[in-house]
Each structure stands twice: as structure tokens, then as C-alpha cells.
């Protein structure tokens, strides 16, 4: 999980990581809206291909991209089947199973494919965003969108200590495993409870230490956030070009074939 849940690529230096997080959020939002409102599969698929190409371009290994997309791909398969067999319409496949007549419809298949395309399109946008923007920068950028500072403060703490706790959890789980803690179902259940309890107690211990450390540094109940810097002219220009480009692409692909 540590390999998958890592922002190592977001900390590299490239054209996308240098871009203002607010600009990236606006463009990502525009792409998500375009994919969600599309009535044909073309727009979601073009967005998917574009985002996956961008992930490769910033140096993400294909294996990691595949792992991150594996879960949503399974959901897409289920969605297509669910829609094909549950939506009424022109039958494309008929068979009998234990006396039941099962039929897949053309309309259901088309609807399932569209939903599946939307899922892979949206997931690729979000994965690209997280691959080129560290989470703390996303959280700071959210202040610009009027997200309450209390939420951002807790989010920064959660993100900061997730990796520390992740290391500790992995150590405890490895120690349990070598002591045959997961050799039988009964032992596994007991070990899972102990592991979850250990994570909780360690997190609470860490909370006490963190609060003391923050108090020593002048903490008085809330983290002071400075003003956000002005978005640069080049980033404003990028947003100004990207959003109309997405809109134009959307209109063209929704009307295709012309």
C-alpha cells in the first residue's frame, strides 16, 4: 500500500508540478464536469487517454498506473454487466439459467459502456491531479475555494501523520505475522483487533505529543494560515486556454460523427 499511497511523483519537478494547484483544480473540475455530462463515450475516452499519457509523461511507471486503475476497471466491468442485464430493450443475448430466461439488452449495454467510460475518465483525471500535486498543496489551495479552515487544519494533520502511522502499522503487522498471528482465522481476527487497537492508541499517544510540540511553538488552538499568493499570469493564461479547449473538445465530440 505504501507504494500506491505515495506522493513521490507529485514532488518531482516538471511542467505540471510547477503549475499553481488552484489552476490545476479548476482545470480538473472542468474536465470532470465535461466527462460527467457527456452523452457519448468519446469525451470520457479522450480524457482518459490524455490523462494516462500525461501520467506516463511525468515518469509514473505503467505498473503503478495499472494498479491504481485496477479497482475502477473492476467496477466498470460490473457496471456494464449490471446495466446490460437489468435495463430492458432490444435483446442481444438470450439464454436460460435454471429455468430463468436471461437476456442482455442493446440499450443496457450502451448505457453500461457510457457509465464505464465516465468512470475511467473521471478516475484518470483525479489520479493525474494527485500525481502532480502533493496533498498539502491541494488542501491549501482549497482555502481559495472557501473550504473552512478547520477542515483544512484537520486534513493537514491527518495527511501528516498517516505516513508515520502507516510505518508503525506495517511494523506491528509484520511482528504479528512472524509470530503466527495470522496462521488461522481465529488468530487473524484476534490479531486484527489488536492491530486496530494499537493503531488507535499510538495515534492518541502521538496526538498528545503533537499538541505539546505545537504548544511549544506558540499554537493557540488553530494553525495560522497566511494569505495565499496571487496566481501568476502564466497560470491564469493556462486556465484561460485549457477550459475553452475542454469545452470545444466536448462540443465537437458530443456532435461526432458530424
Amino acid at each position, binding site marked *: 500500500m505504501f507504494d500506491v*499511497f505515495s506522493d513521490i511523483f507529485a514532488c518531482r519537478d516538471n511542467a505540471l508540478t510547477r503549475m499553481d494547484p488552484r489552476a490545476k483544480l479548476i482545470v480538473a473540475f472542468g474536465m*470532470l464536469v465535461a*466527462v*460527467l455530462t457527456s452523452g457519448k463515450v468519446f469525451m*470520457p475516452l479522450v480524457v482518459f487517454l490524455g490523462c494516462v499519457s500525461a501520467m506516463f509523461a511525468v515518469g509514473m511507471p505503467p505498473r503503478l498506473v495499472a494498479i491504481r486503475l*485496477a*479497482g*475502477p476497471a*473492476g*467496477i466498470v*466491468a*460490473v457496471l456494464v*454487466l449490471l446495466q446490460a*442485464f*437489468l*435495463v*430492458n430493450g432490444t435483446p442481444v443475448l438470450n439464454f436460460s*439459467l435454471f429455468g*430463468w*430466461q*436471461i437476456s442482455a439488452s442493446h440499450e443496457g449495454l450502451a*448505457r453500461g459502456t457510457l*457509465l464505464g467510460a*465516465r*468512470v*475511467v475518465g*473521471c*478516475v484518470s483525471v*483525479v*489520479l493525474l491531479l*494527485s500525481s502532480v500535486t502533493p496533498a498539502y498543496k*491541494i488542501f491549501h489551495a482549497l482555502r481559495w475555494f472557501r473550504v*473552512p479552515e*478547520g477542515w483544512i*487544519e*484537520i*486534513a*493537514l*494533520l*491527518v495527511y501528516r*501523520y*498517516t505516513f508515520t*502511522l*502507516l510505518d508503525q502499522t506495517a511494523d506491528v503487522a509484520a511482528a504479528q505475522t512472524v509470530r503466527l498471528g495470522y496462521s488461522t482465522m481465529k488468530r487473524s481476527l*484476534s490479531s*486484527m*483487533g489488536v492491530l*486496530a*487497537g494499537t493503531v*488507535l*492508541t499510538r*495515534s492518541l*499517544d502521538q*496526538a*498528545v505529543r*503533537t*499538541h505539546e510540540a*505545537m504548544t511549544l511553538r506558540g*499554537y493557540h488552538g*488553530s494553525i495560522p494560515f497566511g494569505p495565499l499568493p496571487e496566481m501568476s499570469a502564466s497560470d491564469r493564461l493556462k486556465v484561460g486556454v485549457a477550459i475553452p479547449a475542454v469545452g470545444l473538445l466536448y462540443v465537437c465530440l458530443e456532435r461526432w460523427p458530424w
Partner: protein
Amino acid sequence: MKKRSGIGAIVLLASMLGLTSDTAHAMHIAEGILPPQWAALWFALAIPFVAWGLRELRVRSKEEPQLKAMVGLVGAAVFLISCMPIPVPTAGTCSHPCATGMAAILIGPALTVVVASIALVLQALFLAHGGLTTLGADILSMGVMGAFTGYGIFVLARRLGASWVVAAFMAGLLSDWVVYAGTSFFLATALHGDGSLETMFLSILIAFVPTQVPLGILEGVMCAGAYRFVQTRRPEFLMMLTKEREA
């Protein structure tokens, strides 16, 4: 005949889902599934609960300054626990607990909604579990329904004289099942199209039974085990968090 075919399709889909379920993501509605109007509606309904949680955080942290650190660290723990793979013997696969019932017992349901919203954003961004466009529905099912059910069941079981461990088990079990039922309903409302909402809801519900029923029991066991661990090793934390909530 049509109803007969519908039942057949549900059975077929249930079997297919049972066979294709790799690592189950049943607790989260995936990115892009909900149409914009449904995504906006669930988001609008989730916002007041998050605002309530943030208000409680602001009010309580004035009296207890270390609360924010506590909530942040419990949030990190919840995020990690909700990513732990649990073996599900009936499906021959692994799934994840939702952990919001457990968190609600510790820090209360309103703050758990805030913690769940943050964990869901991180999972959507980095693990492709859930999504930003489905965040409202996911907050409502995992955060609101899971937390309030878990907390309500825990308090009710204690008032009825159940032991701490039994109450924690019931909270973990029922919060998990309620989250699963809620997720199925949100999915069905978006996916039924021109077909019957009831059939779609039923098919999603049945499809995930082989995974979610044993998972709920396992989450109950894990919640009870974790609670017992904290109670026996570090009871001062439970007293501190309960005292803060009562204050």
C-alpha cells in the same frame, strides 16, 4: 415472466459479482458513476452534517485545545484502518472495514463525519477508492449513516445493560451493514434509469451480500477487539475522550 427474468438476472449478477470481486470497494461509490444532478444532491445533503461537525470541533476545541490534534490523529488511524484488508472467507477475497462506527464511539458522530470526509478525499485522490464527484454520497453513507448508527447502537446497547465489548461489536456490525445498504441505495437511484428502482436496489444489495454480510461481522469483531485493547491498555484515553464529549 418479466419478474421471473428479473430475478434470474439478479441471481446471475450476484454470482458474477461474487466471482469477479477482487478487492471489494463496495463501501465507496466510484468516481464518475453518479450523474451530475444526483452527485450535486447528495453533496448538498452532506454539507450540513460536515458543517455541524466543524461547528462542534470549533466549540469544543476552545475548551479543550488538544482536541484538534486528537481528531486529526484519530482521523489518520481511521484512514489506515479503513484501508486494512480483511479476509472474507465466503467470497474468497479481501475487503475493507469502514471504521466510522469505531471512530464514532471514540470521538462522537459529528466529528466522525468530518474525519470521514477527509479520509474519503484522501482515498479518492491517492487510492482511486470512491471519488470527488461521489464525495457527497460517500460522506452520507460512510460518514453520516455509519457514524450515527454506530454511535446510536453503542449508546443504546450500553443503556440496555450490554457489556462494552458487546456494545462495540454491535456498533461495528450494524454501522457496516447500514453503510452498505446506504451505498446500495445511492447507487440504485443513479443507475436504475427507466427501470425499476426496487429491482436495481435489490440486485445491488443481493450482489454484495456474500462479501458484506461476513465483512460486517468481521468489522464488529475488529471494533470490539480494538475497543477492548484501548480499554485494557490505555483506559485514560477513553475517559478523556468521553469526558470531552460530555463536557
